[in-house]
């Protein structure tokens, strides 16, 4: 059951990501990104991270992507032209992406014991109330990074207000 969910939604996420690249109209690309976000949420859920799944849906697909779509609608962006792109990107891009993929998987695989691991659907069997655990970690061990991130977002909001304000 969990394996089937993983295969279906992993495939959906991959298909959405590819569609995001191949679509020429920005609104279709944005909607493909929504599909990717939702599939990721289901994958989180199947790993037992319920709160992360809900936050993914509410924050990313419900707020951020709506704003993306909103901006695209406001700017009335049309279809894009297909160009050949720069030769340097072709030359460096594919090996670069492959190198990053190899590096990340090497790090994750070699540090497997330190990072801890879950099996697909493992948490569903012996459910822990992970909202309580997430918040306990967030407000004790990770308090400083949490507050710093809040201040960072506050600075961004103030910046937006300053930029958007009319000159008197």
């Amino acid at each position, binding site marked *: 059951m969990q394996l089937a969910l993983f295969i279906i939604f992993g495939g959906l996420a991959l298909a959405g990501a590819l569609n995001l690249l191949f679509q020429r109209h920005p*609104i279709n690309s944005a909607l493909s990104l929504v599909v990717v976000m939702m599939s990721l949420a289901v994958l989180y859920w199947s790993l037992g991270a319920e709160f992360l799944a*809900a936050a993914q849906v*509410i924050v990313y697909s*419900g707020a951020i992507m*709506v704003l993306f779509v*909103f901006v695209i*609608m406001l700017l009335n962006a049309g279809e894009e032209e297909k160009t050949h792109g720069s030769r340097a990107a072709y030359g460096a891009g594919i090996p670069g992406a492959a190198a990053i993929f190899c590096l990340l998987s090497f790090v994750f695989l070699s540090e497997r014991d330190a990072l801890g691991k879950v099996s697909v659907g493992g948490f569903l069997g012996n459910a822990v109330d992970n909202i309580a655990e997430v918040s306990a970690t967030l407000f004790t061990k990770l308090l400083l990074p949490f507050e710093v991130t809040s201040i960072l977002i506050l600075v961004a909001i103030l910046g937006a207000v300053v930029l958007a304000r009319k000159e008197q």
Partner: protein
Amino acid sequence: MSHLTNFEVFLLLSVLKVAVVLVITLMCVAYTVLLERKLLGRMQNRWGPSRVGPFGLLQPMVDGAKLFLKEDLMPLAVERPLFLLAPMIALGCALISVSVVPFGAVTRVSGVDIFEVANVNIGLLVILGITSIGVYGIALSGWSSNNKYSLLGSLRSTAQVISYELALGLSLVGVVLRAQSLNLRTIVDSQSAHGMLSWNIFGGFQFVAFFIYMMAAYAETNRAPFDLPEAETELVAGYHLEYSSMKFAMFFMAEYANMITVGCVATLLFFGGATSMFGHVFDGFLNTRFFNAVFPVLWFVVKVFGFLALYIWVRATLPRFRYDQLMSFGWKFLLPLAMANIIVTSFVLAMRG
């Protein structure tokens, strides 16, 4: 059912529950439309629909038949796939959120709780998440219609929904703090001790949160007095202008299904869900298994019905907001008030706890 395994029983009963809940929700949607027309009529000193069937009770059936049989026009310049997808997103999201609502006491048949489709640990967040996905239906319908009135309507609606979502989410935090859980069943149980006195709105002192929730929810469902996305005098009909026949009906049904969801959430979070308003006073009265299952459902239905009537009453009473009033009301009044409510509630809980 001895020759079926536990999983098969669970699966069959779940499919049955989904089908029954879906049909009942759709019937409720149809009859909410009739209720609105009747009540609005009475409030405006006229009869409302009264010709089809006794008291006009068959009106939703003929309305449905009419909408099915109408010609389905599609303008040539629309963005076809998105134009078709938009009403499906709107209606789908509106109907899915009913699936986590517990509408009765825990009643197990073969080990399956029959009065709730899915008991999820984060039920409240699921409802909020699905509501926030529902925005795409409105946003895409306006954009794909290729019509400036539709686009304006959907832009207004998107901005409105995103703005009021914050106040709505924050107004519920006080309740979650009191119940210490996001599970809707647990939230209901936390208010069931002394009937009406332990409901969050009275005993829990969450009436500020309740009024913020109601106002934000009216804006979220695009209902009067916040129905600017479909303001007839300015935008013809707003985002569903180019839709006809069943596709128009899907938007219409989505609006009413969202009203029902809002009523359900308000009942669950502030009015003690499916528990009796008298608490345990009449526990000995009609104490059989059947009545113990039926009465909670009745309480729930009565409370949700009250919220639907309130929706209609507000629509008949209040004029529409202006757009800048709407935005400043949401951001400068409701949002700070919701935050103040969270701070006061958590302070009091910390003092007592």
